[in-house]
């Protein structure tokens, strides 16, 4: 009886792409729950929208590109893109923003480059950046923190706003909206207020911004869990957070009235933690060697600071990641590890 022939190795560890992506989804859940706690159900509705859009785009494009549907639809990578994008949108953003951003991410940033594994940019970030550039006012409209305004948007109300643009009970959308802490800080600084004056506003807390510091910390915990599960290595997140912290400390020490504290940079919004642990670590678009990852992460940290402090946007995470995505192949080229015995 002939035996089956195949080539070594005959062992394989259990981890698969689908499994890794599933771990990322799990790690996002606590942070998302925290969002719901502070801002109501909008984010969940948006994540449902982005997920459905992502899966249908993925399926359509695989079909168009004549690729097998099953392995790619079940690899969970489209869902990761969807969830990341959904978590970055304002909870009351109109429904088409979600759909448009996700479709753009999947079609242009992923499949036109060849699908999973071939995209030079993180699709979620491309989708987000496109929305930010094209629809700035929709993207900046964040609701008040429920605990501050005393108004907690229900599922029905959230749906009404997202799908019709009309809040219930005669309130106007503008009345529900406010600027994010990062945004407030930036505009006020531009009006030559000092950091101490600006921080009188109740949206700020002692070291970050109310609510946001909890959201950021929860995403941070999710990220630590990913490191523990070996889905990502520590290099990129530590480099991003560390370099941002250091450079912010430097300027804060020089002039604490002009430059907000390093903790405000880390916890004034949720974006740094999501960016450092979930987006910059996207293996496909990041640098790969350990030294390369450190350089890549440090680059992101510094760019975030530069864009936030001297650039035109209150938050710089998305553009920083995109810029460093461009640099990743170059970093990889110059950080080839020394081969054993050479």
């Amino acid at each position, binding site marked *: 009886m002939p035996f089956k022939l195949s*080539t*070594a*190795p*005959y062992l394989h560890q259990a981890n*698969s792409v689908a499994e890794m992506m599933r771990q990322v989804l799990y790690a996002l859940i606590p942070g998302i729950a925290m969002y719901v706690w502070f801002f109501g159900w909008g984010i969940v509705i948006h994540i449902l929208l982005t997920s459905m859009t992502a899966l249908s785009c993925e399926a359509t494009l695989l079909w168009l590109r004549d690729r097998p549907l099953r392995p790619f639809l079940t690899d969970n990578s489209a869902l990761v893109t969807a969830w990341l994008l959904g978590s970055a949108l304002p909870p009351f953003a109109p429904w088409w923003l979600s759909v448009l951003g996700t479709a753009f991410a999947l079609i242009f940033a992923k499949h036109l480059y060849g699908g999973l594994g071939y995209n030079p940019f993180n699709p979620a970030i491309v989708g987000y950046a496109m929305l930010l550039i094209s629809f700035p006012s929709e993207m900046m409209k964040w609701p008040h923190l429920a605990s501050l305004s005393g108004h907690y948007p229900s599922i029905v109300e959230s749906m009404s706003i997202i799908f019709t643009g009309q809040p219930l009970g005669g309130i106007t959308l503008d009345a529900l909206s406010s600027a994010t802490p990062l945004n407030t800080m930036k505009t006020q600084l531009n009006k030559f207020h000092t950091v101490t004056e600006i921080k009188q506003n109740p949206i700020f807390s002692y070291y970050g911004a109310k609510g946001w510091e909890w959201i950021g910390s929860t995403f941070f915990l999710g990220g630590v869990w990913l490191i523990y599960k070996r889905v990502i290595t520590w290099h990129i997140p530590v480099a991003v957070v560390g370099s941002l912290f250091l450079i912010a400390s430097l300027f804060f020490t020089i002039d604490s009235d002009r430059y907000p504290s390093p903790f405000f940079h880390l916890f004034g919004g949720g974006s740094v933690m999501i960016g450092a642990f979930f987006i910059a670590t996207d293996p*496909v678009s990041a640098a*790969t*060697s350990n030294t390369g990852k450190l350089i890549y992460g440090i680059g992101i940290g510094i760019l975030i600071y530069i864009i936030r402090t001297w650039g035109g946007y209150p938050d710089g995470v998305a553009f920083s990641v995109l810029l460093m995505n461009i640099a990743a192949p170059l970093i990889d080229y110059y950080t*080839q590890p020394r081969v054993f015995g050479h």
Partner: protein
Amino acid sequence: MTRLWQFRGGIKLDGNKSLSSEQPIAKANLPQFLILPLLQHIGVPAEPVVKVGDKVLKGQIIAHCQANDCYLKMSVPLHASSSGTVVAIEPHSVPHPSGLTALCIVIETDGRDEWIECSPIIDYTTLSPMTLRQQVAMAGIVGLGGAGFPSHLKLKSAGIDTLIINGAECEPYITCDDRLMREYPDDIVMGAQIFRHILGGTQHCVIAVEDNKPAAYSALLQAAQGRVTVVKVPTLYPTGGEKQLIHVLTGKEIGKAQLPADFGMVVHNIETTRAVYRAVKEGRPLISRVVTVTGNGIEQPQNLEVLLGTPIQVIIDQCGRKSDIKQLIMGGPMMGFTLPHDQLPVIKTTNCLIASSTQAIESPKPTMPCIRCGACAQVCPVNLLPQQLYWYTKAKDFKTAKNYHLFDCIECGCCAYVCPSYLPLVDYYRYAKAEIRANEQERQKANLARNRHEFRTFRLDRDKAEKLARHQAAAAASQPDKQVIIEAALERVKAKKVPNHSEEKPIQEESVH
């Protein structure tokens, strides 16, 4: 030598060693036929010195390595592993990844298992290293860890100051060295001492044992009595790789193009060491080895001392063949290879046979695109970038793959083991290496052919010119007034740029092309 180093990468594997590690080494049954390939090692095949119909005794040389000087050659003699009659010298399929056949001597055993007269060496220290090396070579000893490098070639004394005995059996399932260390620690220590003597009394001798074999470690420690150092090394695949082990023990990194000997070191396998002990102290050539027979297709996984040439089928039956064996691996699950059937002989490099039933075979998972997660680079013990090698191989850009140090890859399989996209990375590297080698051979052949062709053209032209000159000279002699015509002819010849008769010319010609 107490400090240990750690090489980068590597993986922790489930050993699955308890399947076979707890029973003493048993003897395999004597088969009816022994099939002995003439080549069971790296190098040149031995040449038969028996004919069909000859009666042979156990331990008798049946194939020799051209004349009596094999201690210099990349070859060793082959011995009959039991007494009987030579019934055939013919091609037979052998266990090799290529699945090809090779010339084998087939012996029908007579059941008496009768030895030739052995001549043990009572006190080896009175013999010269040279004589002992010859003894090792004539005993047919090659590296028994799986590589099969003729051992005597690793016993040239010049500049060796460290002898390492490799007891880091790091592949899952394999336990033959573990058992040997537990059951024959004295033989191994003595074998190491013999090695030292041959090497001119090396300063250091270390037996390295992985820390998942505590019984082997303490047995050796007891046997060593301070004469050799026994070191516990961490269990991490692939610590058993020669260069990886040297790094763990000494911190030295031996590159692709270098040999341990360049660093004053030599590494021998546990079972090789015991074989040397037997060859010297008992005067017995290498005619058997211990094979781990394991896997879930086997009723009673165990280690058997098997006569070389025994058909695998016989020993699988002896260990209890389950009816549902679907795959048979020779060697370990990380670097071994599958065998097409079990009508193949056990050879000197057969350290392990893993028979798997249906459930055990991983159904080949669908591969996904590389997501550049870098998991492969994290575990590569050679510090390569497996994902880049994969990428360039896939794009058939072999030149770049080579620049990314493709040839440093030791094919350990760590990268493929962790790849979440289930890419058969090692297959790609083997393919790329083969392609590059084939291309280089092609190029060499083409160069040779072109040189030959150029020289031939040159020679023909030269001959023609000479002939013409001779004719014209003859004509000129008979008709002196035709001098002018001759000169014109010579001019024409020159204009054709025919090189003159000097010997340097062809070389210049070549360099022009």
